[in-house]
């Protein structure tokens, strides 16, 4: 404790340099926590996926649709308990910057399939009764200041759905009981889109409830076999695999974000290490004097290492606090295109741990050199 004042005074020796080091570590930790939060957001949806829901898409790609007549064939497969479908509508609200995810759903069966979508009984019946009604997630409602009864107009984003704008009335604002369902999307009646669609009776994907998770491979195989060698061959997988394939449309996020985070951390490590090395080099005489006074090499090592650690941890605290404030759905809505992201406690702990590692590693070499300094040589250098 008696050395703490000495460490703090040394750190304040060059205030600008110390501040810049703290800022660089803060920036690295901020980016790291943010990127981790994004990755966590993506994987949370997949992790929370139901094991009794399987998804059928076109074998070519998710972006191609298939006839809703597939529904009857899928229902006939043994082990299938329920079925619904949905389409990616791609409608544009105001402009691309204000857009959010919007889906055309078969309402009754969809709400049955996803009990995670929480609506009041009144909102549910109002939505089901209104062909141009829609439901929106609570985050989306909060972002746009919408309430039940408000009118929302979407421009057509995919030419298949015609050219005229679509008008909707908000009939319900849903909450979600699971990460599998985000609250930044809008859902409306599939029929409303279908009746204006240039190609009628198309579904983007079918969602099937199976009796038991053990039957997943068997039922999926049977569904795909039904449409084999047809113009609309299918690919059926678990909801988790579907969520993962959706994420994979963004590329290998783990590798991409991981590489960026690693590059930032390594760059910061060099910055912090260089700062400490410069700081120690400037203090060569002082260290030699302290050694002459009787300070053991181990104590000198500790003083330098603690200084580096302290600067880095302060940077880490600044970084995680900024990330916590800046990265949350209220401040940074994802529009439903990517899952909601927020910096959780685990991210904070990892961020602070990272700053400690940066501090420890950056201080290691300067502290070792200071501890091993030959007193006579150091004093002679400046005499």
């Amino acid at each position: 404790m008696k050395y703490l004042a000495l460490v703090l005074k040394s750190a304040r020796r060059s205030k600008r340099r110390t501040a810049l080091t703290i800022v660089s570590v803060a920036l690295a930790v901020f980016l790291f926590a943010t990127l981790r939060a994004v990755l966590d957001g993506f994987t949370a949806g997949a992790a929370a996926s139901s094991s009794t829901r399987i998804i059928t898409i076109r074998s070519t790609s998710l972006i191609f649709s298939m006839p809703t007549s597939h529904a009857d064939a899928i229902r006939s497969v043994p082990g299938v308990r329920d079925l619904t479908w949905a389409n990616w509508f791609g409608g544009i609200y105001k402009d691309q910057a204000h857009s959010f995810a919007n889906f055309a759903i078969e309402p009754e069966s969809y709400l049955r399939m996803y009990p995670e979508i929480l609506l009041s009984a009144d909102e549910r019946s109002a939505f089901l009764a209104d062909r141009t009604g829609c439901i929106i997630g609570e985050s989306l409602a909060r972002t746009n200041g919408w309430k039940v009864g408000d009118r929302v107009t979407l421009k057509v984003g995919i030419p298949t759905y015609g050219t005229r704008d679509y008008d909707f009335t908000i009939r319900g604002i849903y909450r979600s009981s699971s990460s599998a369902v985000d609250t930044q999307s809008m859902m409306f009646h599939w029929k409303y889109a279908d009746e204006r669609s240039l190609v009628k009776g198309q579904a983007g994907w079918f969602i099937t409830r199976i009796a038991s998770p053990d039957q997943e491979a068997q039922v999926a195989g049977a569904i795909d076999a039904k449409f084999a060698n047809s113009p609309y061959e299918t690919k059926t997988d678990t909801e988790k695999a579907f969520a993962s394939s959706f994420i994979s449309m963004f590329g290998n996020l783990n590798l991409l974000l991981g590489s960026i985070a690693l590059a930032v951390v390594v760059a910061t490590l060099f910055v912090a290490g260089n700062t400490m090395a410069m700081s120690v080099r400037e203090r060569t005489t002082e260290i030699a004097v302290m050694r002459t006074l009787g300070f053991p090499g181990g104590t000198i090592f500790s003083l330098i290492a603690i200084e580096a650690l302290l600067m880095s941890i302060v940077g880490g605290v600044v970084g995680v606090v900024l990330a916590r404030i800046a990265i949350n759905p209220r401040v940074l809505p994802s529009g439903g295109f990517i899952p909601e992201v927020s910096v959780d406690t685990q991210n904070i702990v990892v961020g602070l741990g990272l700053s400690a590692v940066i501090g420890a590693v950056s201080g290691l070499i300067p502290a070792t050199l200071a501890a091993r300094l030959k007193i006579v040589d150091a004093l002679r250098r400046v005499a």
Partner: protein
Amino acid sequence: MALIELRGVTKSYQRDSNEIVVLDGVTISIAEGDFMALMGPSGSGKSTLLNLLAGIDRPTRGAITVAGTDISGLSERALAAWRARHIGFIFQLYNLIPVLTAFENVELPLLLTGLTKKQRRDHVLTALGIVGLSDREKHYPRQLSGGQEQRVAIARAIVTDPTLLLADEPTGDLDAKSAAEILTLLQRLNRDYKKTIVMVTHDPHAAERASHVVHLEKGTLAETVVNG
């Protein structure tokens, strides 16, 4: 009885394939309470001898015994502890830590002891009082004159009440008036506080303040003069 015994001390350095001998078989005894000045031309080995006495350098051959301890055989860690206990070092360029106040600079060696904060404070104020700088405890080195900085450095050297005070050209960077004050202070420490002092100097006037002067030439003892 001799406080310091140097027996056949040799210090040499290897430069490329040549061995440079800086001290060559020096044997000296320094009594407790002595004030000895070390003189000699540049390269005569006087600073090297001082560094060996301080335990910040090691002899190539020979033995150095201070207060009964053969310091040439101590480990690095033991030597550091020994320095903290027995040596007070005064540098030519004062070498105060610029980010610490006068008080904190003087307190620095006491951090290595088991003294409480209050005990440390008492010791520091006593040391600053002896050098006449009680009113400068909160000043940083940049706020002090050269003479005042050197007095703070002397306070730092005496605060642990060391066995031996070593001064390397303590007046070399000072004007005549400040230099005279520092030498008077060293004399007072020797006379009133019975401190054993070894001082390296080029200045014959400074050397006159010592009780005797040892001259070194090319790493060997040339002559010893006792001041009247």
